[in-house]
């Protein structure tokens, strides 16, 4: 069993849980923003960093590099997604999303999705996006991109250059995370205002759309939903937030399966393993305490005493299995 993580130490590491060994698999010049793992005979690990590079490691050795410096001098790689496309033409494509970060004074926002074929040096396709990208997720053939200003773009990767659908987020606050259902019929979206929306792609399923509140405390504090991960087998999902708690939910019966106590710090990232027996979550400061009232930098809360750890939680079958809807 292996676990990959990347962070502000500019490196991505692969932890072999059976031996306890950690191997550095990618070194960047700046914070690693995103790490994605593609399972397979020769597993692929893709890392995207604020240093404007995407590194893709295929199997054991070969490293494939996308350097966006030339195209994106003042841009920043924020999110990478991944998709495995079967067939001869494109074996693998990684999208990396960049946005114009430094040139904000001129109000130019240049944000795009790039589709790559690992055998070529140029992107297969470039799609311009309306706003800065905050989150994206892929379950082939569904690609969902959540951007600033609450835009949601849905792509069908069989025709990736035009959006299949464009919509406004069902939530009223900034999109924090999007996560596709394992069966690709829809996606969950989390916002900074402690709320999660369940959204189906097709019109006929829209009666199943709903949203619910979570990650709030009795004092009225509302925390952002940082991560949503779907259980690969059962289709239930987890949410984790800046409040340092995580929950398991069943979207179909609309109930919470299990809630957990505060783990000691905000949870920025979560994942299930392949068969959903392990739920991994990271605990570290997520820069969420950036109240403008306090000066708005957020580093006041970035204390050296903050926890920085990855926890593995053995899921109980009852906690992640769908449950029949409660009778009211």
């Amino acid at each position: 069993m292996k676990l990959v993580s990347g962070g502000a130490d500019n490196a991505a590491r692969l932890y072999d849980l059976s031996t306890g060994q950690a191997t550095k698999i990618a070194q960047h010049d700046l914070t690693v923003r995103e790490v994605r793992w593609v399972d397979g005979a020769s597993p692929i690990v893709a890392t995207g960093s604020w240093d404007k590079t995407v590194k893709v490691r295929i199997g054991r050795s070969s490293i494939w590099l996308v350097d966006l410096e030339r195209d994106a001098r003042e841009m920043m790689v924020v999110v990478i997604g991944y998709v495995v496309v079967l067939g001869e033409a494109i074996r693998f494509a990684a999208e990396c999303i960049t946005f114009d970060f430094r040139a904000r004074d001129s109000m130019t926002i240049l944000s795009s999705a790039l589709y790559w074929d690992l055998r070529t040096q140029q992107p297969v396709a470039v799609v311009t996006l309306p706003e800065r990208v905050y989150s994206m997720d892929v379950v082939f053939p569904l690609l969902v991109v959540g951007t600033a200003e609450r835009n949601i773009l849905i792509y069908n990767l069989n025709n990736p250059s035009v959006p299949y659908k464009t919509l406004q987020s069902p939530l009223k606050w900034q999109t924090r995370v999007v996560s596709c259902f394992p069966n690709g019929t829809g996606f969950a979206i989390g916002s900074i205002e402690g709320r999660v929306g369940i959204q189906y792609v097709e019109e006929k399923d829209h009666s199943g759309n709903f949203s619910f509140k979570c990650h709030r405390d009795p004092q009225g504090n509302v925390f952002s939903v940082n991560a949503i991960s779907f259980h690969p087998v059962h289709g239930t999902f987890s949410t984790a937030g800046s409040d340092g708690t995580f929950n398991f939910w069943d979207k179909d019966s609309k109930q919470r399966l299990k809630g957990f106590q505060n783990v000691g710090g905000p949870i920025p990232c979560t994942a299930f393993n392949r068969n959903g027996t392990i739920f991994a979550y990271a605990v570290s400061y997520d820069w969420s305490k950036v109240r403008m009232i306090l000066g708005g930098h957020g580093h006041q809360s970035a204390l050296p005493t903050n926890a920085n750890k990855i926890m593995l939680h053995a899921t109980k079958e009852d906690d992640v299995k769908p449950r029949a809807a409660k009778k009211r």
Partner: protein
Amino acid sequence: MGKKKTKTKVIRPWCWYCERDFEDDKVLVAHQKAKHFKCSHCGKKLTTAGGMVVHVAQVHKETVNNTPLFIVFADNSMQLLRDPWCRVPNALPGRESCEIEIFGMEGIPEEDQIAHQAALDAKDNPPSKRQKFDTGGNLTELTPEQIQAQLAQHQALAQATPQSFPPAPYGAPAPAGGPVPPAGAAYSGYFPPPRPGAPSAAPAPAPFPGQYSQFYQPRPPAGTAATQPYRPPPGQPYQQPPFPPQQPYGYRSGMQPAPYPAPGGPQQWAPRPGVSPPGQSPYSTGSVAPFRPPSSQAPPTGPAYGAPPTSQPPYSSPQAPQQPPYGPAQGYPYSQASPTAPASSTPTSQPPFAPYSSGPYLAPSSTPLLIGTAAAPTNGAVPQGTETTAQISPTEKKKAVETLLIYDDNEVSPEEKRAALDKYRYNRDSVKQQV
């Protein structure tokens, strides 16, 4: 017109405590049991407020205790020191009384029913239509010359009070608002008089539809109503609306820390640029002397504010202690700022204010005269001492139970904020030089 339609419209069952309406009585009763008649000690759901009181008294042995309940200041204003022992939870301010027995729709005071109806009417009739009623005639009756004259008059006024709120949200564009009276009563132009025939409890249009609570604000006596017709817009009732559109995309906090200097005291902060603080009196330059913002959000302007504790405050907020203590770590969200606030105001020239300073910070600046123990104002409607006593602002109280976003910047993500720090400024060349 639309009026007829609303008259025939059936009123949905609604909850007196929180002004929500429901599909049917059953849902309403279930709502009341779950929201308002739930024992705060054990969670048991009672059927009525009185039942809850009896339950709390008998099961949990909680009765009126003898600790001081409120302080009365020299100017007859009062400040609550603790919650009255019995309040209906989740109720609107003024609706927390346990003494009124309400079950579903039964027992609702008649004046509140009328006000509710009026609020519904006001919501259904957009203010623009209402305006025609208010002016008592249509606009074409005015000759162009008259309109010109009024326009000039209005512009002169607007220059005299550069910080006045834009008229649009209040439904009365001044040039069309009939003859604008000079200076003194000018502000009534921003708040159209009640529609003839409308219940007096309901001021004519609802500038903020859906926010009924404003109709239950304790109204000043009729005599004073003429001099203080204007009420600053209540704060955002809920934090949902996004930032005002005039907020440009940008990194306000990241890039310009200057407008947010570390304030002198932990309870003070400077107003946010581009948004006029709610309740900051725009009339300080006007000629309406007796005007005083009726909300405790707004400290009195002028040199007296922030003065040493010896000075007598014009008023104190009686309800301040009921707010949760907003510590510096969880200050009040800027998102509360009303989207109707003008972007053109120049807050930098205004003194810092402490809109949400809690009770303990007001107390030392006052001279307590007597300490009350009995006669708890259980319904939250604090008796008004003098005319200058601050009125209760329902929204203010409502905010106390409202939510507070930990991360409140709707425009920019936390990652962007972090990446904006110099530490993460990336220059490939400099990195290469180091290597």
